[in-house]
C-alpha cells in the first residue's frame, strides 16, 4: 500500500479543494439570478428547448465509439508488450506484428467502407 499513500493524499487534496471552492462560492458570492443567467450558454443564440433529433444522439457517434473500443483493446495489449520488449525479443516482435497486421485488416475494412467519415 505504501507507494499509493501519496496518490491518496493528492486525491484527498484535490477533492478538498473542489469541495471548498464550491462551498465558499456559494457562501460568499452575491446571489442575483435572472432568466438570462440561468439559461444554458450558447454563444448568444437563444438555446432551443431540445436538441435536434429529440435529444438523442445519432448513430454515427455510436459507431465511432464502437470502433474506438476495438482499437483501445489493441493498445491495451501493446502496453505489456512494450514493457517487456527487451525480454521477449524477436518472437515477441513477430507475434505483435501478426496481431497488429490482423487488426489493421479490420481498420482497412472500416476505412474503405467509409466508417471513419463523419457525414
Amino acid at each position, binding site marked *: 500500500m505504501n507507494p499509493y499513500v501519496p496518490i491518496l493524499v493528492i486525491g484527498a487534496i484535490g477533492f478538498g479543494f473542489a469541495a471548498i471552492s464550491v462551498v465558499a462560492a456559494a457562501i460568499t458570492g452575491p446571489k442575483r439570478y435572472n432568466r438570462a443567467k440561468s439559461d444554458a450558454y450558447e454563444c448568444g443564440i437563444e438555446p432551443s428547448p431540445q436538441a435536434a433529433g429529440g435529444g438523442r*444522439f445519432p448513430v454515427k*457517434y455510436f459507431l465511432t465509439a464502437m470502433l474506438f*473500443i476495438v482499437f483501445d483493446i489493441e493498445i491495451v495489449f501493446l502496453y505489456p508488450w512494450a514493457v*517487456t520488449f527487451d525480454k521477449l525479443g524477436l518472437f515477441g516482435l513477430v507475434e505483435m506484428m501478426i*496481431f497488429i497486421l490482423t*487488426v489493421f485488416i479490420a*481498420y482497412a*475494412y472500416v476505412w474503405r*467502407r467509409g466508417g471513419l467519415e463523419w457525414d
Partner: protein
Amino acid sequence: MLNLALHVGATKTPEAVLFWFLAPLAVIAALGMLMAKKAVHSALLLAWVMITLAIFYIAQDALFLGIVQIVVYTGAVMMLFLFILMLVGVDSSDSLVENIKGQRPASIAAAIGMGGLMVTLIGRASLGRSAVGLVAANTNGNVQGLAEQLFTKYVWAFEVISALLITAALGAMVLAHSQKVRSRTGQRDLSIARFRGDSLASAAGLPSSGVFARHNAVDVPALLPDGSAAPTSISSVLKARGDMIESAIFELQPKEEEEN
C-alpha cells in the same frame, strides 16, 4: 459471515480498512443498479462498482489489471453504454426485450438461493494450505510477469483474440453503418451546379446576411441592389429551426412614384 473457516492468510490492516469501506459501497451500488428505474442511473452505479473493483485489483497486487479495468471497462465500455443510452433517450425505461413470463419469481428465488448457497459454501470451505501471495510472482513487476505469461504460455489465445476484434469491427459496421447510396456533393459539384444552373444570379455565391440590410443580425435578410430582400442570405440552420422572421417586412418600399 459467521463461519470463517477459510484461513488463507490474513491481510494487513490498511487493506482491511479499504475493503470494509469500499465493499459495502460496491454492494449497495450493485443493488442500486438492480433497482434503479432509469437506465442512466444503473449505468453510473455500475461504473462506480467497476472503479471499486479496480481499486481492489490494485490492492491485491494486480496493478496492471486495475489500470486496464479503468481504461477498458470504466473508460470505454461504460462510455459506450452511456452513448447507447443517449441514443435511445436518456429517460428511457421502456422494455426492449420480453423475458419469459411466469418464471420471474421462481428465478429470483432460485438465484437468491444460489447466492446464499454459494456464500455458505465458501464460508465452510477450508483451503488446506495458506495463501501464497503474489510477492514472488511479481518480483520483476506485475506488468512484466503478466506479459511473460501472456506472450509465452497464452500466446495462442492472444493471437486468436484478433479474430474477435475483427468480428467486432465487422459487426459494428454491418449493423450500424449506413452506406451512402449517392456520393457526397463536393466543392467541385457545387460550383458546377452554380454555373450550369438555371440562372447565373448566384454564381458569385449567395449574399450574406446583413449586407445592405436594415440590421446586422444573422436572422435579418440582406437587401439586393433593387431593395428587395434576399431570404437565401439567411443560414439554412435558422430556417430549419423556424427562427426566421418573415423577410418581406425588411424590404425597402419602392419610391418610384414620388420621384416621377
